[in-house]
């Protein structure tokens, strides 16, 4: 599927800080990764780990008091952070499409579905009303909405959650973006509808030959639709690897804890293994490795120095002082 070319490359330690009255909240604190053409990259982590802020930084949609303080975001070789606002508008919604988490609150309740769908088309393609109408109807058909011309005249509240999410996907895809950013696209949906939407996203991504950045807290979802995955913890990537490796041989203690904590369907366990404690304060994070206060395998090196992401095996990157190249986890 992938041809080896990179579509999005984040390098030079992307940092997005929020300058609040309580102090500087380091929401994203040194993140580097890349997405190849045609690839789906999953960004997983718990609430507040900075995965959504990473996505918003890519689109330059971080609002004050938040600001990207360092790093480069190369999209097709160009640094998005250095672009003028006008150039950025040509990228947003056109070359990069975004699917937000909660369709109920991200669609405009006082505009019809058709209007919202045609907005990016008109903005980016300079075509007449009639043609925009035709394009919008076509895209609604592609996201498998029955009777598209009727739905175009409807308001968001008249549609079910699943239908609203389909409209969101249609809006994200209507300009055939090279990269789709999906932020928790199925969290607000029921499981049977979630299965429909996942299948749809997968099919469309293939048809449109797009790449995708999938943001989710659900590791199960990652296993079903991503090629590679990055696990985030308190603003840092702690592990980046192929999706099969993350389940077969997770190396970072946090990743292992996360996978263990999911109730399994085919295993009888009286108690679930837990990660003790809770996510750290991002204004005053722990020194050294941010995970060390919750980690069961803390060693002497963990408290002093923040571990860097290093390639311990081909295509398997881990940020942990206890994991060494070619040796795996060192006791």
């Amino acid at each position: 599927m992938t041809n080896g070319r990179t579509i999005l490359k984040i390098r030079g330690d992307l940092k997005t800080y929020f300058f609040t009255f309580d102090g500087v909240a380091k929401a994203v604190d040194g993140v580097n990764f890349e997405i190849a053409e045609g690839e789906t990259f999953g960004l997983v982590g718990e609430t507040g780990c900075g995965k959504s802020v990473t996505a918003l930084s890519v689109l330059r949609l971080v609002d004050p008091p938040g600001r990207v303080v360092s790093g480069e975001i190369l999209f097709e070789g160009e640094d998005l952070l250095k672009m003028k606002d006008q150039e950025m508008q040509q990228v947003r919604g056109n070359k990069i499409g975004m699917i937000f988490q909660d369709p109920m609150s991200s669609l405009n309740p006082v505009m019809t579905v058709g209007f919202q769908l045609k907005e990016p088309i008109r903005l980016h393609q300079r075509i007449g009303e009639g043609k925009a109408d035709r394009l919008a109807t076509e895209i609604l058909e592609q996201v498998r909405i029955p009777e598209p011309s009727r739905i175009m005249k409807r308001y968001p509240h008249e549609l079910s959650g699943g239908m609203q999410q389909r409209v969101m996907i249609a809006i994200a895809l209507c300009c055939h973006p090279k990269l789709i950013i999906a932020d928790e696209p199925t969290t607000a949906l029921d499981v049977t509808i979630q299965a429909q939407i996942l299948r749809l996203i997968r099919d469309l991504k293939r048809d449109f030959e797009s790449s995708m950045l999938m943001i989710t807290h659900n590791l199960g979802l990652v296993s079903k639709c991503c090629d590679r995955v990055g696990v985030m913890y308190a603003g840092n990537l702690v592990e980046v690897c192929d999706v099969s490796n993350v389940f077969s041989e997770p190396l970072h203690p946090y990743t292992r804890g996360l996978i263990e904590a999911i109730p399994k369907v085919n295993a009888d366990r009286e108690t679930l293994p837990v990660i003790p404690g809770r996510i750290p304060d991002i204004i005053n994070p722990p020194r050294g490795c941010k995970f060390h206060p919750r980690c069961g395998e803390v060693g002497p090196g963990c408290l002093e120095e923040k571990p860097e992401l290093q390639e311990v095996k081909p295509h398997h990157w881990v940020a942990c002082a206890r994991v060494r190249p070619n040796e795996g986890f060192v006791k």
Partner: protein
Amino acid sequence: MIEPLLQVVGLKKYFPIRRYLLPGKVEFVKAVDGVTFQIDHGETLGLVGESGCGKTTIGKTILRFEEPTEGKVAFDGTDLLSLRGEELRRVRWNLQMVFQDPFSSLDPRWTVRAILREPFMIHRRARGIDLEKRLVELMEIVGLTRRHLDWYPHEFSGGQRQRIAICRALALNPKLMILDEPTSALDVSVQAQILNLLKELQREFKLTYLFISHDLSVIRHMCVRVAVMYLGELVESSPCGELFSEPGHPYTQALLSSILDPSVQKDEILLEGEIPSASRPPPGCRFHPRCRFQKDLCSKERPPFVEVKEGHFVSCHL
């Protein structure tokens, strides 16, 4: 034979929709439409279904937060629905509920002490020093400390708030706890903590749970028996392991295939369409418009809830 702790027979709850332009005509949303089940002492019954299928309404009608339209609810031999006023209050402390969202189920202007004291006040159980002792004890049971009693809900994380909600439900030593999606607002690592806590409490205090959830892997972990709901009706009910190994109803099969468990790889069964409106449910079997195996009979006759194996009930014509 020991009597079950809770017995629900033919429970129905219809909500009227008034149309102001057509005053004479009243339609009903059939949120719960004839549900029968029972829970034994010390057991955990899981109630699964998608949003809008009526699982929360069942929980609320059992506690009489909502008055049922029809049916019978017997708790420990007493008919809950015939009780009024003082009588009801005397029984009701036995049944407690933990709600889904710990952010909206705790009063933001009350300290934890005030929140936890309320059940004791209402049921006139303890006062003064005894009460204070009991509160500290309760906090320790759920893994919090004495210090936290003077905090306000906003000072806690989601997981801690859910612990307080559990604490409040536990306060009067109830027999039955209705857990309405207790972990769906939480992260996985916190979810695991709460699930472990609930299991521990059950062992220690011999609690009986009605565990409402849409997450099948959580249900699998927690429950002894499972009942699957679709559009206000039970479609299947069986011992937990059997439901997962041999699901009988096509809807259950589809639900199981939609579990995103990385350790399981299996064929997906994709359901067509969405859940129909509960005010105009499809005739016959309510699932038939989305069913893979539908026959002529399915759209005409409502399938009976039959026992296909011991303790395994399915409502399907197949």
